[in-house]
């Protein structure tokens, strides 16, 4: 009697578990098929094509190229400038976005009237298509009729109108400025949520210990924001470094390649020169760079969670 009950219970468990597995697989299947077909397969293909001579127009001539594509890309006179632009574009954007995002989140976390209004106003740039953001800023920055040049000359800050997007000295800085405008609201929202989650007694304890405002910020606020900051900074390092739309809309990589970054080079190789091999090898190099970034991120993250636990 005892035995049979046991058997029955185990038998029940096993079928239940099997049922759970088949249910889970069935429910996950659509998602997995999509990801495998449109991310997994293309990923394998990119890495494969990086080592072959593939041309978009004559896709039959696919000989093994070894590292030939990689050499070709690195020897491209635009490669090092583009790499440098990508790094500057990414780092300056992310730092600017973080500072502005944190600043606005701290302001919004105070007791202010009309917080909902301010929050909405600040969030709007993030909502609109990049193409629209780029278009509007190109219009405002226009050297002939642009409102920004008018303000700046009128206020006596500059003497002559500047062709912000058409001058090699200003183009990269201007695109970064516009990118910060569009991206920082995401930081504001995430950091604001994290700030609101910090318990008040931490501040009370700190002020009893005699910590001033600045020290409270340094020793209470910043440590509490560490893990959220890590996540958003990491995501944005990737999103920014691979961004194609913004620069394409504002300058198309010009003037004279002054704003050309690696994603634009990938686009040019594939859609203008039809050299799939070269484009794939550049993609592969970027993937490698991102994986390295991910390793750093992962190490940092585990270090932070260890410290939080201990």
């Amino acid at each position: 009697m005892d035995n049979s009950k046991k058997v029955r219970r185990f038998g029940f468990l096993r079928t239940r578990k099997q049922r759970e597995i088949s249910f889970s697989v069935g429910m996950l299947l659509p998602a997995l098929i999509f990801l495998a077909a449109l991310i997994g397969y293309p990923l394998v293909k990119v890495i494969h094509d990086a080592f072959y001579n593939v041309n978009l127009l004559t896709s039959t001539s696919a000989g093994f190229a070894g590292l030939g594509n990689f050499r070709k890309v690195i020897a491209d006179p635009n490669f090092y400038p583009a790499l440098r632009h990508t790094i500057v574009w990414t780092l300056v954007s992310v730092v600017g976005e973080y500072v502005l995002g944190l600043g606005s989140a701290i302001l919004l976390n105070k007791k202010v009237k009309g917080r909902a209004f301010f929050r909405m106003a600040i969030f709007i740039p993030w909502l609109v298509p990049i193409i629209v953001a780029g278009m509007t800023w190109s219009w405002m920055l226009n050297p002939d009729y642009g409102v920004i040049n008018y303000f700046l000359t009128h206020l006596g800050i500059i003497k002559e109108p500047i062709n912000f997007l058409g001058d090699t000295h200003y183009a990269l800085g201007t695109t970064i400025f516009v990118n910060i405008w569009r991206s920082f609201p995401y930081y504001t929202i995430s950091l604001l949520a994290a700030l609101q989650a910090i318990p008040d007694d931490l501040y009370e304890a700190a002020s009893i210990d005699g910590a001033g405002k600045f020290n409270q910020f340094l020793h209470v606020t910043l440590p509490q924001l560490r893990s959220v900051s890590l996540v958003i900074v990491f995501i944005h390092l990737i999103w920014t470094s691979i961004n194609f739309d913004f620069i394409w809309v504002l300058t198309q990589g010009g003037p004279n390649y002054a704003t050309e970054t690696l994603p634009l080079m990938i686009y040019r190789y594939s859609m203008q020169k039809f050299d799939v091999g070269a484009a794939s090898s550049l993609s592969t190099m970027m993937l490698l760079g991102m994986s390295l970034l991910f390793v750093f991120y992962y190490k940092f993250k585990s270090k932070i969670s260890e410290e939080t636990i201990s």
Partner: protein
Amino acid sequence: MKKKGGIGTYILLTLISIYCVFPFLWMLISSLKPLDEIRTKVPHFVINHPTFTNFTKVLFDAGFTKYIRNSLIVSVAACLLSLLIAVCAGYVFSRYFRLRVVKYSNFFMLVSQMIPGVLLLIPLYLTMKMFGILESYLSLILAYTTFVIPLCTFMMSSFFDTVPIALEEAAELDGYNKLQTLFKIILPISIPSLISTALYAFINAWNEFMFGYVFISSEDYRTLTPAIMLFKGANTVDWGSLMAASVIAIVPVTLIFLLLQRYFLAGLSNGSVKG
């Protein structure tokens, strides 16, 4: 004890808000100006002769009604498809996270979330070409759906985590199977997070530029964002019409957001913190 914001706080917040909102204001003003008021050395805030010619020109002469329709079709389809997929996968992530197959899928999804579309541009293009779906809505719908699946799934699963299991056990006793439980019991109480997930997917598809620019070259299927870019290439000087096109492109997202922002912001921070 939250500190009360002083006058400095208000000044700074106002400045930041102006920085954020001014471009839209200027866009709107410019779109309503006739040509001779656009091209002047001294830009004015006041429009002497406001006109809708820019809008009618863009909508009817430049074919933007068609592009809007295309964008709507693609975005709504991608939004519904990704919502359905994310609900199924998110539910399993939340309830059966102990199963090995679920753990692997979760990891797979995390990794795919990290892989940017631009690096996969060429093989995606070739895959779409192979299936013969370049120059169609389908190519865009599939691409947009795929790239939002991970985040949407994480958003849904972190919501399902908050739904008490007791509810499902009760439904099971009533003789519901799992699918019925999910669709008849759980989804009706998940409307807010369904809204925020759907919004994310919709806005993402509506705003996307690169795939629309690369996959579609025929006017019949062109969506709004590439259309604006191409319109600029053809009419560099016609800033009034360009601004009118921009206003048209942001109207739906802004309206949706203003009406539903509560859901949207909460869902977004859930998904991103978890992912």
